[in-house]
């Protein structure tokens, strides 16, 4: 049985990749992921803010109150070398590369074109096999048009593509007016892969303290539907490889995503909830399913249920809405 797949030009032994999460901050976890069968690993994102602010923050607190009072001209010993966030991240890439044989995909998260993009080059130098760009952007400015928002993504993509030779994937938000048009633009600007979709952590309100609180809710399998639809729609229309992420919890989820057209499926919540060995369980499930249905290769199923290849393409479109509602019977 051939589980191999190609993603961003990387030859992967199977289509299961742990997506960016804190799990990958620990080299031991990355080793466990490889042992459990992961085909590649995406490291947790290095944030633009981290790059911009960490050194400023350290400088601020180390010098705060210094040179103000004759007895305490400083408050901390001097260290000649600090490994500020980015440096530590680069070291982490190197360590991950040394520790495992599977490809290591670095992740860069930011919203502006600026100096921090240099870190994509440093990631490449540190040994990353590819870069996943995560543009986490909430356009709150009412004067900013949709085109301008899209241009922001394109500009960042171009800047990173110009900086590195390794493949660059872009993790997208599902909130674009015209996903097809926008993904085509990304495609034209050389994106190597699209990771669909980014799960924005939505804020909550703490009624006790009247504060907005960022609490993380892990995904459920239902979250799968949104990327599934768009991967199915885009399959065959763009050159970029697609990765399905959000709501991948079981072997069935993986298979559905592949059939929709994904080259790889990415898991995060399922691993946080069930632990890293869950990869093996899902992988075994995929194998069993394939064996039972006599699929020789992953390749065979990739895109088989895409809009292009299904019997009723409209099932991915508006018409489908009507059917879906009709099928719903409230539990009264």
């Amino acid at each position, binding site marked *: 049985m051939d589980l191999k797949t190609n993603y961003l030009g990387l030859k992967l032994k199977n289509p299961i990749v742990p997506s960016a999460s804190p799990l990958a901050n620990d080299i031991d976890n990355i080793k466990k992921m490889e042992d459990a069968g992961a085909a590649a690993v995406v490291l947790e994102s290095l944030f633009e803010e981290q*790059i*911009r*602010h*960490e*050194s*400023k923050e*350290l*400088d*601020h*607190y*180390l*010098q*705060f*109150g*210094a*040179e*103000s*009072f*004759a*007895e*305490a*001209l*400083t*408050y*901390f*010993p*001097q*260290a*000649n*070398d*600090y*490994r*500020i966030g*980015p*440096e*530590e991240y680069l070291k982490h890439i190197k360590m991950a590369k040394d520790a495992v044989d599977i490809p290591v995909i670095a992740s860069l998260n930011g919203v502006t074109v600026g*100096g921090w993009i240099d870190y994509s080059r440093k990631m490449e130098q540190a040994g990353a096999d590819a870069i996943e760009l995560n543009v986490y952007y909430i356009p709150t400015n009412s004067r900013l048009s949709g085109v301008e928002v899209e241009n922001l993504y394109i500009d960042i993509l171009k800047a990173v593509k110009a900086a590195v030779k390794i493949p660059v994937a872009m993790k997208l938000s599902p909130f674009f007016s015209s996903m097809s048009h926008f993904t085509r633009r990304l495609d034209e600007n050389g994106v190597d892969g699209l990771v669909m979709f980014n799960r924005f952590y939505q804020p909550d309100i703490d009624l006790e303290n*009247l*504060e907005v609180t960022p609490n993380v809710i892990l995904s459920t399998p239902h979250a799968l539907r949104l990327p599934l639809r768009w991967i199915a729609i885009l399959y065959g229309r763009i050159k970029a490889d697609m990765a399905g992420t959000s709501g991948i919890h079981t072997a069935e989820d993986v298979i559905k995503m592949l059939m929709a057209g994904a080259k790889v499926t990415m898991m995060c919540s399922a691993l946080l909830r069930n632990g890293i060995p869950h990869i093996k369980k899902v992988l075994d499930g995929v194998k069993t399913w394939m064996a039972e249905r006599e699929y020789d290769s992953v390749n065979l199923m990739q895109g088989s249920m895409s809009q292009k290849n299904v019997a009723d393409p409209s099932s991915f479109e508006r018409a489908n809405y009507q059917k879906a509602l009709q099928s719903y019977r409230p539990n009264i």
Partner: protein
Amino acid sequence: MSRLKVTIDGNEAAALVAFKTSEVIAIYPITPSSGMGELSDQWSSEGQKNIWGTIPSVIEMQSEGGAAGALHGALQSGSLATTFTSSQGLLLMIPNMYKIAGELTPTVFHIAARSLAAQALSIFGDHSDIMSTRQTGWAQLASNNPQEVMDLALIAHAATLESRIPFLHFFDGFRTTHEVRKMEQLSDEDIRAMINDDLVFEHRLRALTPDHPVLRGSAQNPDVYFQGRETVNTFYLRTPKIVQNAMDKFAKLVGRQYKLFEYVGSPDAERIIVLMGSGADTADETVEYMLSKNENVGILKVRLYRPFSIEHFIQAIPRSVKSIAVLDRTKEPGSIGEPLYQDVVTAFTESLDSDDAKFKSLPTIVGGRFGLSSKEFTPSMVKTVFDELNKSRPKNHFTIGIKDDVTNTSLDFDPDFDIEPAETIRAMFFGLGADGTVGANKNSIKIIGEETENYAQGYFVYDSKKSGSMTTSHLRFGKKPIKSTYLISKANFIACHQEVFLEKIDMLKYAIKGATFLLNTHHPKDEVWNKLPRPVQKDILEKKIKLFVIDGYKVARETGMGGRVNTIMQTCFFAISGVLPKDEAIEQIKDAIRKTYGSKGEEVVKMNFHAVDKTVENLHEVEIPDKVTSDFELPPVVSDKAPDYVKSLTAEIMAGRGDFIPVSMMPIDGTFPTATTKWEKRNIATEVPVWDPEVCIQCGKCALVCPHATIRQKVYDEKYLENAPGTFKSTNFRGKEFPDMKYTIQVAVEDCTGCALCVEVCPAKNKKETRLKAINMETQYPLRIPERANWDFFLEIPEIDRREVKVDTIKGSQFLEPLFEFSGACAACGETPYVKLVSQLYGDRMVVANATGCSSIYGGNLPTTPWSQNKDGRGPAWSNSLFEDNAEFGLGMRLSIDKNSEYARELVAALKPEIGDDLSDAILKADQSDEAGIYEQRQRVDDLKKKLESIDKPQAKRLLHVANYLVKKSVWIMGGDGWAYDIGYGGLDHVLLSGRNVNILVLDTEVYSNTGGQMSKATPRAAVAKFAASGKPLPKKDLALIALMYKNVYVAKIAMGANDVHTVKAIIEAEKYDGPSIIIAYSHCIAHGINMAKGMDNQKAAVESGHWPLFRYNPDYRKEGKKALSLDSKPPKIPFEKYAYMETRFKMLTKSHPEISKQLLKLAQEDSAYRYHFVKKMADILDGETNGKNGNQ
């Protein structure tokens, strides 16, 4: 050989040599010597090696006495060992110094010479400490400037090995230790060439070792001790020659020739001054000037003060000399002259006693004192002394530099006399501590020193506050060597980095004609002239000053620099001064930025670069109109309402005119009135809290946490609102305890530091706009005038009757008047809320023994004190003895109060027939356990005093003097963890077991905060501190648990930010307990590297992580069979790491030593879990014990 030119301070110069020539370095922090130890520790942790290729081992001890003991041991065991200290620290080393010298042990201690605590402590420089050790048998070698510090450090290390006499190498605290000077750095080869390895081997051969066992340190008896003491004479006799030989060898090697006694001046001078230390450089400069004016003068710089070589001394003095002034930088009250004077007189007298005596008769020799506590010593003073020597009978035992109008010792000098060469550029910079001015100027002087041919010098003056403090930088540079060891008083360039200073300080008085003035202002260049105060405009016109302006605030804001205008103003200085071509200057500034900030990441570097680039385009020269247009005069320093004492003395010090205060105006015994901070009105906050009565729930938390007592609440009758200012806010009181009363929270906006702690803890939110609370920060300036009136009105509203308040609640305690207010502590200080709370609860009957440290500085550093008084004139009486003896000091107070109280009671009993049974019995049996009891007893004592006046018996008079002791007094012993855990622990331990009723408040910041963040035994594992650069590897000492083991001690561990009610309760219980109590209070601190506004959150996290379990142990409960140990915080609910990551002290280790950090944080997590578990188990055990036995141990 060409040597590296460096621009460093005296401390670094000494440390460089000491580190290279030592194997063991034992230290203890004390200003101004701490820098030497810190650098040694830093180099050791970086793996730097000494000249023998090994990394010196650096250890921080629990006191200077401990450091001396450890060194004694290291030296006896064959190591080359050194230390650095100052002042009281040196005094603590004296016992060991006798031993080390008696055993002929080579070593060098490098001393930042500093004043001793007498009528007051002073951190500044003089020779009082050095002179207190001249009898110990140590050689004493004086350096006069940073270059000499490096040179003579090496000469001392070389000479000690050969002479076997230990050396004190000393130089003036601050003036030399902290002066940044361009100098030549000695190379390792230089050091190797001077240090004779054979002598090192000899030292090692004398080591105590079981392989060649000997006994050293015996006890000797009358038969032989005397002879034994005389055995060392030959060593002392040969030491001067050894030192001179080392100096000569050094001269051949390096080119700088030193002499034991170095004469500078006319070869046939008739008048000479003898002195040592930094003042000698100024004297040298003045002599050079006076020679050019054909004055026949000279000075003798004493370098080797002990052993004093009469032979070399006499040799150095010109035969022509007729009169000599010997200047001592110390005072020995009651002596017939200060030590150097007496030595000179003796030396001359003895020298006459030979056939070939150089002098056949004694010249006129007078002694004088100068420069105590870094008092300025200027060319004018030198000239004055020389002029005095011209008189037929020059004044003896004079003082110079002050006005002594009591015993008339002082010589008058001309403050305008100036001899500085015109070609030396002199620049003064007035900045705020927080704006980075000093750091930038240190970089500037380094650039000038290291990148140009100029000689360069930088010296920095700080004020006495820890928040909103002003710094003044004095930079000199030019083609001529700089010998001026005094502050600049005539400057070519003056920069004002904060425009508010223009209203407070007359800085242009320092400007010479044609000087340049650089002003950071938010006013556009075309408008700035009219915004200047009138005196500033006048000075600019009269002195034809060129004015440059920049809106540095704007540039800082736009380039992400926040409030730090340092880089911007530095760039302006280079752009205007032309000391370097513009492009080169900018390149050098950027290079310095890279060196300063590079280690902290590229972004900070880029931000500073950006600021540099943006500066030049925003810098403008202002065209000066031809007339004064402003009518804005500088406001008076203090209000007209201030008492005369404050106006005449305190205000003068505040205005920077303390140098002109005559002796007659100073208190004779160091006693000062309290309640003086309230006259300062520092106006340092840009934003202040504003109360919203609609939203307020009247919980009192804002007042509780306010570190500066600038937020107060009052409850009062409506009638008092009658004449309220229009903007005065008031609302109905919400509680049941005071029905129909009014309630106000008032902010003293002119005293507030703007720290925002109050806003952070305010639990009430505006229901319409949840971003708002009941206290919100708003811009101070527009509020200043109306709130000044409101504050004054608020103070007039009567304080509540203390008997009516539930003092054990937050709200209730905050109705009590704080008698600790507006201290100079850091904004958002974590210690002062506790101190203030204690003052609210017991201030009207408390005595405070305060250990040296932050609390003694914000509590007792002139010009003002925050310790205050109530309307009856009662308030805390406060004193600071030393760092190490505070527990004993407080115990002494208790003993005295108890004795006086006991005596008073005895007298009451004896006078019962005259006083009357009722009053006597009521007094003797009074219950004073609460405010009502105290109030009633005070009434009785007042009655008693009245009666006593009419009783004609000696006992009545005696009772009158001690009657106040019949009212209960509360003794508080306060200090930081450095005192309680380390240097004062022995005494503290003893006091805990004394059984006496003292209350010990340990303000635990887990680090030596006052001296700049050195590790103490309270420092938690994994935290970075000085002397724990790689994270503290061992856990925090648990002082609370140690105290708990004694059973008879009330113990509480509190953290206001975690549980404020618990804090109040614990303090009340501790005070109530009739025995020793210790409260250990978690105090967030600027030295933790945290957002201070959120300090209370850090406290909470410390508790929630288990790092700081809250508990109370009450021995009374144990006796009563109740639960004695109450664990008052819940089991850890957040990992230690989460707490740690809120603080730079832990977080920086993850950046500097990630692997070590991981291990230590894991262990720290275990420490926290264990600590909580241990207290819980203890509580269970004690609970079981009382339940089982039903009490009474």
